[in-house]
Every structure is written in C-alpha cells, then in structure tokens.
C-alpha cells in the first residue's frame, strides 16, 4: 500500500481513465468508480501490473445514489483527495422537450457530483487535509444555445467549487476547478471539433495533475482556452445574444 491514494469518480470516462493512469504513474493508490464496475477491470489490472499500485473498483451510479456513508465504508481508508470526472454531454433538444432528461442532466453534471464532493470535503476537514478536484467545462463560462443545459450545470459545479474553496481556505483542503476545452473523447466523438483546438485526454490529465500538485484554484486546459473564454465572456450581451456560436 502506498502513502497516497486518490478517489476518482467516473473513471470509465476518457479523462477519468487518463487521470487514473497519471496518478498511478505518480505513485498513488487508486479508488475508481463507474456505473458498471466491469468496465474498469481492464484498467485495474493494467495499473496494478504496470505501476504496482493498489486499485479498488467501486460501483457508483451518480443518478441514484445518496447513501454516502455506505459508499465510503467500502473504502479501505479515506483517500488523500477526490476527483470528479462524472459528466455527460446531454442532448440539448432532448433536455428541452423531456423534463426527465433535463433533470437527469443537472443530477449527473452538477447535483450528484456536488453531493459527493461536499461529503468528502467535510471528511477531509475532519482529518485535517485533502484535495478536491472538480472537472467542469469551458461551457460553464457562458451560456450558449447549443449546450445551454450542459453549460449551466457545469456553471453550477464551478460556482459550488468556488464557494467550497472559499470555505476551505483556512482548513488545509485545496479545491481545483478544471475547465477543459475541446477534448477528443467518447463524449465528443459525434461533434465536429476544430483539430487545432482539440486535445487528447492524457494531456488534460497531465495538466490536472500538475495543477492539483501545485494547489492551483482554476485551470483551463489547454491553457489557451483561458484567453478564448476571456474573450467570449467579455462580449457584451446585446451582441452575444445575436451570435451563433
């Protein structure tokens, strides 16, 4: 067993997998979760053989789990930190027409993750140290017609992370808000993404690891998305509302 361990929620996502590899390569034990734990068995074997770390797979469906004490009892020990990679790019039209899809969007992208991050942040405070990483999105920076529901859920997550950071500032718990731009993943495979603005999950994972280790607050990954979003955020609303972006 290694000194450090990290809990990754939604490790079957491409960024989640890349993060698991990144942390394992940097000497962490892992607790990884997915709705279907069998999807993580290959990854578990791989990390155990390659990095000789301990990997625990826990089943978690964010859309209907509320029993957090049971969830944390499954873990051999309280991890050093928690990373949330759960998120789903909901179909805008389906959200608009079907209230069930709409509320699931907020549950999966914001409410569910917040419940877990909050629970573990409090446990970290009791222990005296820890870190919380939430993967939000550049979509949360400004509402666009194409992904307004996804974006607004991510904005909720980002706002929560900001509040948490504010609250934890003196409590030795560090909170990182990650806002990735376009990433080549299963979630975006159906979208036409401009090649020169699109990056791969392993680069994002490397950026996240570095930022978390150096206790950053908010990162855009790749970095140039900071400038892109800075520009987009500053477009006056009376112009923005007329734009098709």
């Amino acid at each position, binding site marked *: 067993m290694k000194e450090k361990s990290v809990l990754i929620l939604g490790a079957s996502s491409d960024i989640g997998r890349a993060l698991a590899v990144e942390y394992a390569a940097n000497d962490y034990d892992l607790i990884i979760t997915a709705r279907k734990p069998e999807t993580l068995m290959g990854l578990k074997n791989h990390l155990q053989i390659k990095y000789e770390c301990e990997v625990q797979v826990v089943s978690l469906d964010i859309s209907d789990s509320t029993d957090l004490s049971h969830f944390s009892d499954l873990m051999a020990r309280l991890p050093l930190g928690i990373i949330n990679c759960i998120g789903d790019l909901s179909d805008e039209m389906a959200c608009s027409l079907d209230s069930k899809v709409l509320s699931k969007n907020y549950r999966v992208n914001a409410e569910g993750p917040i419940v877990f991050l909050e629970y573990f942040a409090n446990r970290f405070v009791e222990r005296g140290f820890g870190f919380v990483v939430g993967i939000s999105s550049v979509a949360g920076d400004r509402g666009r017609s194409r992904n307004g529901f996804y974006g607004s859920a991510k904005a909720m997550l980002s706002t929560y992370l900001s509040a948490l950071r504010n609250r934890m500032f003196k409590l030795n718990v560090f909170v990182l808000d990650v806002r990735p731009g376009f990433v080549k993943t*299963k979630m975006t495979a159906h979208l036409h993404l401009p090649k020169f603005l699109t990056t791969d999950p392993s680069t994002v994972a490397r950026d996240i690891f570095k930022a978390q280790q150096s206790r950053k607050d908010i990162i855009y990954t790749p970095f140039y998305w900071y400038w892109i979003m800075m520009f987009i955020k500053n477009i006056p609303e009376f112009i923005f509302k007329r734009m098709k972006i």
Partner: protein
Amino acid sequence: MSFSPVKKNLMNWGQFPVRMGKSYQFSSEYELDKLWIQLKNSFIARGMGRCYGDGSLASQVLSTVNYSHLLDLDEEHGVLVAESGITLNQLLETLIPRGWFLPVTPGTSYVTLGGAVAADVHGKNHHCDGSFGNFISWFDLKIPSGEILRCSPSENSEIFYATIGGMGLTGLILSVALKLLRIETSWIDQKIVSAHNLEGLMDLFESEEQLKYSVAWIDCLHLKNPGHGVLMSGRHAVADELRTFDLDALEINLKTKLSVPCNLPDWFLSTWLVRMLNNGYSYAQKFQQDRQLVPLASYFYPLDTVRHWNRMYGSSGFIQYQCVLPLKNSKDGLNEILWNIQKSGEGSFLAVLKKFGSSNSGGWLSFPMEGYTLALDFPRRSSTEKLLKNLDEVVSRYGGRLYLAKDSRGPKDLFEQSYPRWSEFKLLRNKIDPNQTLNSDLAMRLGL
C-alpha cells in the same frame, strides 16, 4: 452515449488510400458488446493505422486503441496477456525494466498487439525465430456472431491459424497471450558491414546467420552498383559486456524526439534529394564503428524517433512495396527488381532487405516464406504505378508475394497465385461470417 461518431478521413500510414468513415471506440468488453449490436453495416477492427494500405479501412471501423490494458504478466513462465489495442511501445515500457522483450518486433513500436497478430508481423530475427505468430500461446477472438472463442494451436486451431495474418477478417481479437524473451540488458551489440552489391549483401546475410538480428539497407539509386548497401546485424548484449561502459543495463528510451508538423510539399522527396540522402547515409556509415553497443530502441525503431515521418511524402502519400521472393530465385529476382527501379528513375528513400528463415507461424495468409524480402517506399506519383506493375510481374514470375499489411494496390491474381491458402480462408470466413459483418477495403479489393 448513443451518438454516432462524425465521419472523418481515415487513412493508414501511407496516407493512401484516404476514405471517409466513422471510427467507433470502446475501452471495455461491455462497451464493445453494445457497439456490436449497434453497428448495422460491416466494419473492421483498426488499431494505430500503421499498416500502409487499405487493410484497416472501411466505412465503419472499430478502434481498439482504448482497449489497451495489461491483463497478466507471468514472470515465471514469461507469458504476457494484454488487450489487443495496447501498443508494443506501451508493452515495452513495462517489459524492459523487468528484463523482458518482445520475441519478434517490427520496425516500429507504434503498432497494436492485435495488429501485430492480424498482420503476423516479422522482425529482424525472422531467420532465427520466425514471425509474431510463432509466439502466441492463445488469443480470445470475438467472432461476428458475437461469441468469444479461445483460439490456440490446440483449441479452435483452424480459426487460430486463419486469424494469424488474417488482417482482422475472422473476428475482433480481444486479448492475446504472448511468450516473451528474457533479456539481460536493453543494449544491442551491433555490427555494421558494408557490401558493394547485392551479391555481396546476400553473402553477408549467409555468413552472419548465427547472429540473432540482421537487416540491410540498400541504395537502389546508386549509379554504379545498385544494391550497394550495409548490413546491420546484432544480438542482445549481456550484462557482463556492459560493466566496462558504465551503462544502465535496463534503461528504456522510447520517446519520440522530433516531429514532422504537417504534410510537406509533394515534390519534397524528389529523386535527386533521395540520391543525395542515400549518398550521405552511405558516407556516414563509413565513420560508424564496425561494432558498437547501441540502445535497443535505436536499433529496432530508428524511424520512431521522428513522429509523423510519413508526412515527408506529402499529402499524395506514398506506397510501400514489400515483396518476398523464394530463396532459390531471390538473387535473380532482386537484381531484376533493382534494375527496374534504376531504369524508372523512381527513388526509394527506404530500401530494406532481409532474409527470412524457414520457420513459419502457420498463418494461412502469413507473408513470410523462406527467401529474401525487400521493402521499398515510393512517393505516389503518376509514373509510380507503371513501375509497380513491372515489379508485380517480376514478383509473380519468380513465385514471390506481396505483404498484405503494406499493400494498397496489388493485383488480385497475384494475391491468389501467391497465397495458396486463400480459398480455404475464404471458405472459413464464409462459415463464421456469412453476412460479411467484418469487411475491409482490402478484403473487397482482393475478393476475399
């Protein structure tokens, strides 16, 4: 996530042919099962796209690159089990520090394990050890019906041998158990000898046969002596030999250093530039020590140091022409091939000669046979096809064959004549895949 991926340009390493297609990804069997039901039309498995031609192209491809996990490493018996999408490069990162190496490795480490099985790749040690298929204990194959079969020389052996070299047409290879090679160091004791002509090189192959690895580079545009070249043979250095040098016995250095950022103009690799580079390379070899210890990566994967080197040929792409000629006809056939190239004035920047031994993996569509194999790279120009047709004719006349993993244009009749078990393969394929669920552009082109 039932969205369908966007259509995009799919191409392999030769950047020709290019076709529109959808690439589906999966990272676990659970996701694969869902896709298997979802995919209506035919598809083919695709790994790193490092075959040169149309072997892994279809309107729908199932990308294995995320299905890439190590499943077991039995260090007692030297057997590794991994998912098919893992690249040899990723395997080596784990294997070398523990004193293991791949029993057979192609000239690039950026191929997937599944791809290596499906193309039955060969390496510089074919004359001693045979090809990749010789070292497979078993693999799990998802056949078109969705059923998963364990295939080995004793279990489902027909499908086992059809799949080795079968270009992914029998099913999707899930996990592979591979026998490994023990190494003491990650260094190669390399010996370089040059020869003035083809006969000289072939004599060298014979005289250096006891060394585990051997490959020759030839200058096919050399004005006086086409076939002028150097033989690079080698063997794994043992720990004792390293003591005097202060070298790290099992260090790995598999990272790429340079990259060609975009396609260069089509005229870039012109004949005169190739001639100049060849002369430069020949000249540089004179200053190389005859015998030296070199890192394993630079011996086996010299081209891996430059990412996207295929972009040097420009957006029209290039054709790699690799043929093998039976041993008894090799000398005449190769001379005729070199003569044809000289006559055409087409420059092949990379011309690699290698002797194949008699050991055979048993794969029905396996490429290697006892004799000499020559691999040539030609930029794709309007005049190239004429030369290649002439070469096809020579290969056919001398009883040779073309390598399916590198082929993008070979004629159907040459394929049928040179791969005697193709009809058996087709029968088996019809049996396990009557609806042709798995299909690639290569299979359609060759009528498989």
